[in-house]
């Protein structure tokens, strides 16, 4: 297998794929919203942000939902052509799926289509209705997806137990205290207080509160587990040449990416305290020439504190074994040395299924476009590291994003 994947485009290439706009609806419980309505509205928000209308789009990529098998299998991406008035105009519409890392792979796919000329402008759409779905049904559904039915389903495994297996090993291997683990949740909650779209906006959290919540899947307490939420995000990618032609001075390009699929079944992961992060990071840094010190912010998949702590170690934001204590030091907090998950992440903005990682990605792009609300916009940010993972944390995906202009809006 190849060890390096040199990019075929650079910042000067006319066909360099760039982000030009993002859209987002608030995350939480919104029983008065609906799936198709949210997809439509969030798509229009992203296009407006990109100073575009639907007719500028030739390809729609849909990020799948997990709230309903019917909505998943219903070829919704083509329905969006109808809803957005693109019948006969749209060239291609389809769904991409790698669980929580879908957004990272959707960026790779859209980039490839744009760089090769198969697409000019790609609209990526996501909506999840978990927050308004029946909780017991969702728990059962989550014991079937990403778990081998022959080998692991008979044990009674479910998603919090998967998070707990990673957390237990992480705490054992790194000797991280329960307080250090809970501090990751508290950092995320601090960011959520700056995001009116977050599920837990206006609801501060302390380490004591986390550790006094009931035990769900040892060693995880209830407040260390993500809350299922409704949510929708979208983004628009096009070529650098097309962005320029449309007068869009500020864009965000993909400087590199790296990935590592380390298992499918949680019982097959060689090291639950590490997962695939170090390999994914090495591949991304090699492709881009970046190092861990080259970004000013990071947006890392965060359904459970240990997943994120393992990620920041693999990405070399801190010494091996120090991930949770790095969060505890305040490094990732508002005003910290490397602000992380500036929308509040999945643990505090809400777990919108496959969309949770997409929301983090969109937050990274929004920050790089300098379009985050002023209370959480990181001043002068030029580069962002995005980390995603899907299924039972089967893969680690890293995207390295950079703003294409130094100043101005």
């Amino acid at each position: 297998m190849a060890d390096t994947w040199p990019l075929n485009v650079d910042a000067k290439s006319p066909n360099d794929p760039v982000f030009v706009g993002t859209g987002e609806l608030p995350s939480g419980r919104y029983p008065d919203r609906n799936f198709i309505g949210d997809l439509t509205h969030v798509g229009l928000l992203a296009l407006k942000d990109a100073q575009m209308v639907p007719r500028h789009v030739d390809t729609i990529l849909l990020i799948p939902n997990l709230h309903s098998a019917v909505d998943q299998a219903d070829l919704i991406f083509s329905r969006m052509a109808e809803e957005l008035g693109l019948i006969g105009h749209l060239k291609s519409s389809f769904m991409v799926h790698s669980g929580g890392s879908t957004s990272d792979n959707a960026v790779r796919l859209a980039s490839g289509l744009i760089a090769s000329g198969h697409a000019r402008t790609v609209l990526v759409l996501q909506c999840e209705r978990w927050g308004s779905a029946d909780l017991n049904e969702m728990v059962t559904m989550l014991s079937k997806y990403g778990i081998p039915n022959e080998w692991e389903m008979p044990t009674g495994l479910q998603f919090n137990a998967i998070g707990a297996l990673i957390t237990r090993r992480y705490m054992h291997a790194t000797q991280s205290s329960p307080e250090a683990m809970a501090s990751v949740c508290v950092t995320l909650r601090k960011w959520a207080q700056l995001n009116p779209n977050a599920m837990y906006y206006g609801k501060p959290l302390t380490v004591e509160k986390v550790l006094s919540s009931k035990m769900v899947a040892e060693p995880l307490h209830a407040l260390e587990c993500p809350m299922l939420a409704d949510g929708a995000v979208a983004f628009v990618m096009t070529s650098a040449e097309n962005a320029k032609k449309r007068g869009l001075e500020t864009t965000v390009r993909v400087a590199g990416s790296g990935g590592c699929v380390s298992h499918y079944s949680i019982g097959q992961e060689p090291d639950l305290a590490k997962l695939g992060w170090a390999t994914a990071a090495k591949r991304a840094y090699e492709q881009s020439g970046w190092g861990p010190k080259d970004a000013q912010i990071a947006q890392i998949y965060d359904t459970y504190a240990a997943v994120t702590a393992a990620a920041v170690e693999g990405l070399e934001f801190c010494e091996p074994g120090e991930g949770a204590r790095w969060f505890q030091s305040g490094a990732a907090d508002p005003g910290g040395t490397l602000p992380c998950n500036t929308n509040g992440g999945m643990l505090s903005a809400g777990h919108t299924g496959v969309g949770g990682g997409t929301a983090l990605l969109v937050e990274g792009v929004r920050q790089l476009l300098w379009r985050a609300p002023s209370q959480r916009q990181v001043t002068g940010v030029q580069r962002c590291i995005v980390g995603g993972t899907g299924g039972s944390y089967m893969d680690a995906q890293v995207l390295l994003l950079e703003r294409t202009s130094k100043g101005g809006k």
Partner: protein
Amino acid sequence: MSNPIRDGFRAGLAQGELLVQKCNDCGGLNMYPRHACPHCQSLSLGWQKASGRGILHSYTVLRQGAPQGFEGDLPYALGVVKLQEGVQLLGRLIPDPDGNWDSYKCDDTVEFTPVSAESIERRPCASFKRINP
């Protein structure tokens, strides 16, 4: 749906044995069992009885939020076990005599423990028990 590797593994469990798939060509061990040998792609695959001993890589005790059909099992413990043979799997952990799992720690030595055929019929998975060092 016919699935000989699943059925072969479960037949072993029902007889009180933990079986690991063994490739008849390269001798490689596969866990979970595969439809072709991932080492040499051979389709000639058999079974080897495992020693049953392994190291507990990680574990959890689920106290709430069981999937449908598992509610009556709560609380129950799950662990990832790295067998001496160099392969690994997820299984259930047998509680201490007091019904809890307080004696368990990561990296403990655990041993495959047969359970009744009725239990395997209901929950076709391996169970492990901590053994005193």
